[in-house]
């Protein structure tokens, strides 16, 4: 393992490798990614694999819109021959309450103003897209056909390969124990494989980013929440879009491989990353009510992972006032995978001191400035 680097990125999830790739592409030499387990071990490999642009805040809309542009041309961008299984069959968001329906009106307006051509649908129109959808009490839906799915493992692998081709070193099985800070400046990291001297560290540790913050003495305004998810056996394609309801607290999509992947937000937070039988029972009730044919599907796997939640449910992509050379891409609040292509670009801009490629406010200072607009549309 190298013992010196220009930038050390902590975390081999999609955001870690995307940042590494973008730094290397911009000409930064000696970029190292440290991953304590294996690539995509954390939230990336455990996520619902959805790619959506129908958000309720400007930042999320822009990041997702730009990420989709990159997803659409990923092979040209990364120049590696890996099919990330990107499909664009839409997201169908369901409104069952007046409050939700009103929010959808606002969201669609915002999205349209930012070039995301989502639209509102009547229950009948929603049923045309998903014929077996239970539309009981459904007021309407929001839909954007350019939303969809990508395979998180393959996308991470594609970014990692592309980064490695540009000279990035990715070390797996390397865990950071502590960070060396001297006079408010980053000096290096202590790992289970030795010390690496560096002046720049990126905290992309997802569910463990709070702990990394503590290593430099910073209390980051994020916390990790266990979310559970399951996958069924694969069947022929019957469901195009991701179906999502905030009030029923559920998302469900059929992947290109044919399996259904679904989950919902938990009632309580847990430090455990194990799954529960309670999730199976509740999930089954929810999904078979909303999408009745799913009652015939057999579950093949269930698992859990962390949402790293920020106060406004938008990512924090930022430098750090207290510690020079400490950067963070954290608090993705359950949508880190789909934003990663754009986040890599923004973090590269921040580290290199460039003007941000897009007009977004993602710095950690926004919470002190009270510029918080909370993302309303999170499962």
């Amino acid at each position, binding site marked *: 393992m190298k013992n010196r680097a220009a930038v050390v990125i902590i975390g081999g999830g999609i955001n870690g490798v995307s940042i590494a790739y973008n730094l290397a592409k911009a000409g930064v030499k000696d970029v190292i990614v440290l991953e304590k387990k294996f690539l995509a071990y954390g939230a990336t490999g455990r996520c619902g694999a959805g790619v959506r642009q129908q958000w309720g805040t400007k930042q999320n809309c822009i990041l997702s819109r730009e990420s989709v542009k990159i997803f659409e041309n990923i092979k040209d961008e990364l120049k590696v021959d890996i099919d990330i299984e990107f499909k664009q069959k839409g997201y169908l968001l369901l409104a069952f309450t007046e409050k939700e329906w009103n929010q959808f009106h606002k969201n669609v307006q915002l999205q349209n103003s930012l070039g995301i051509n989502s639209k509102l649908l009547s229950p009948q129109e929603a049923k045309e897209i998903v014929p077996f959808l239970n539309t009981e009490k459904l007021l309407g839906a929001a839909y954007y056909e350019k939303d969809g799915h990508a395979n998180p493992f393959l996308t991470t692998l594609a970014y990692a390969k592309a980064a490695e081709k540009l000279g990035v070193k990715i070390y797996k099985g390397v865990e950071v124990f502590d960070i060396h800070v001297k006079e408010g400046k980053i000096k290096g990291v202590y790992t289970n494989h030795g010390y690496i001297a560096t002046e720049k560290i990126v905290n992309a540790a997802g569910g463990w980013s709070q702990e990394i913050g503590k290593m430099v003495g910073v209390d980051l305004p994020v916390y990790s929440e266990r979310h559970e998810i399951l996958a069924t056996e694969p069947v022929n394609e019957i469901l195009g879009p991701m179906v999502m309801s905030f009030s029923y607290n559920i998302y469900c999509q059929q992947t290109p491989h044919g399996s259904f992947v679904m989950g919902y937000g938990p009632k309580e937070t847990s430090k*455990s990353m*194990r*799954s*529960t*039988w309670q999730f*199976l*029972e509740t999930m089954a009730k929810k999904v078979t009510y909303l999408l009745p044919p799913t009652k015939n599907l057999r579950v093949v796997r*269930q698992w859990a992972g962390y949402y790293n939640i920020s106060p406004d449910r938008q990512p924090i992509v930022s430098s750090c006032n207290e510690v020079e050379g400490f950067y963070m891409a954290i608090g993705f609040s359950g949508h880190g995978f789909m934003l990663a292509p754009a986040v890599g670009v923004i973090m590269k801009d921040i580290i290199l001191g460039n003007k941000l490629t897009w007009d977004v406010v993602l710095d950690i200072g926004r919470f002190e400035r009270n510029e918080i607009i909370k993302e309303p549309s999170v499962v």
Partner: protein
Amino acid sequence: MNVAIFEEKEFLGGQLIKQTHKFFGSKDESAGIRGIYIAKNLINEIEKTENIDLYLNSMVMGYYEDGVITALVNNKMEKFIPKKVIIATGAFEKSIPFENDDLPGVFGAGAVQTLMNVYGILPGKDVLMIGSGNIGLIVSYQLAQARANVKGIVEISDHIGGYLVHASKVRRLGIPIYTQHTIVKALGKNKVEGAIIENIQTHEKKEISCDVICLATGLMPLSDILNQINCEMKYIPELGGFVPIRDENLKTTVENVFVAGDVAGIEEATAAMLEGELTGLYAAYEITGKFDKRINTIKERLKDLRKTSSKVVNGLKKLNLYEDFIVEPHESLGDLHKTGIPEEEKIENLLSSKKERFAILECFQKIPCNPCVSSCPTNAIKMDGLNEIPKLDYDKCIGCGNCVAVCPGLAIFVIDKKKESVILPYEFYPLPEKGEFVEILDREGNLLERNQVLSIRKMKDKTNLIEVKVSKENLKHSRHIRVVR
């Protein structure tokens, strides 16, 4: 204490219900009894025990942090909260890759055994067996019993993997064992029509026509549920792959969870049965506080059984178990290890007696097995320990043939020099008639002569004794008969 058994299949018994051969081991356990009958006895015991609830057709899905086990019972997820959990999920088969290995006609040995011995379906006519471990040898023998034509047993190593008495059993049926060979290709368009095997030293290729390729290339613990539970696992090749870390009472790193049998590491069935009993008793002890002394006895018996299994013991040492245990070094058995045929010299030693009629114990390998000792009415067979070679006291031997009938390895014969006859164990159909002329075969299945059946002793456990007339020069070579009608 209430016990619930969850079984994915619609019947109990696991692999035992396919094991039509007699088990080795100690007479104190189930040595000399066929696996299918052991299963029957155990199932009977379970069925008449009132406090055992049987959940057949019921797949366990998970064991959760809150102590709940979920199982799919009658297509519904049911929940159970046990005090102790014993996981005995066994193993699954390893495969080896070769060209066209996805052709219909390529089977795992377990599938062949299930088809043949559970459902009575012969998977094909001409079978090529890959692997000469005990499973490869035993399944070859069973296929021959079911009248399939076993074209050969392919073994990549330079010696036979399984017990040599099993090898000798298949060799006398005329089945060749190709050591230092491996399969490189399956032939055929829509199904297996043959195979190409290759000598790994000379790279010489050989084509064998067959319609079944049967893979008996080892087992791997079926540990999915242990992973789901977060049991700490360790990769130990000697035990078949990832196995749970556990203590001498088979307790895993997760509280209240025990393992027994192949899921804890690939071993013989007798060890699995002992481990099952041990975990049952130990789990009961943890619940009731009453210690059953049999727990210690079982541990001793397991040690006894493992005395010659250097592979298993070396694996256990990696788990910090059996640390001071010394395995007896393997003695070289020369050609027998390569061919399954004992050298002339070994046989001559057994024939040195001046007596007219006596037993010949063609048992040269140290394996844990002793049913012959207690079968002898005159105490003529002595063994210094479970794993030792039996010694015959020729003065005491009356040539009755009891030992011929009980030997699980079919490795004992009686010769009568005066009568010019041999008593052989015979486990095939049809049985010859008294007076019928049959073909007399040697240790490699070659025809020696045609001669007359003098007597037939039909035994309850179906290892029948056939006494055949044999010319003097063939007395020491005659090891099998073929009924030709």
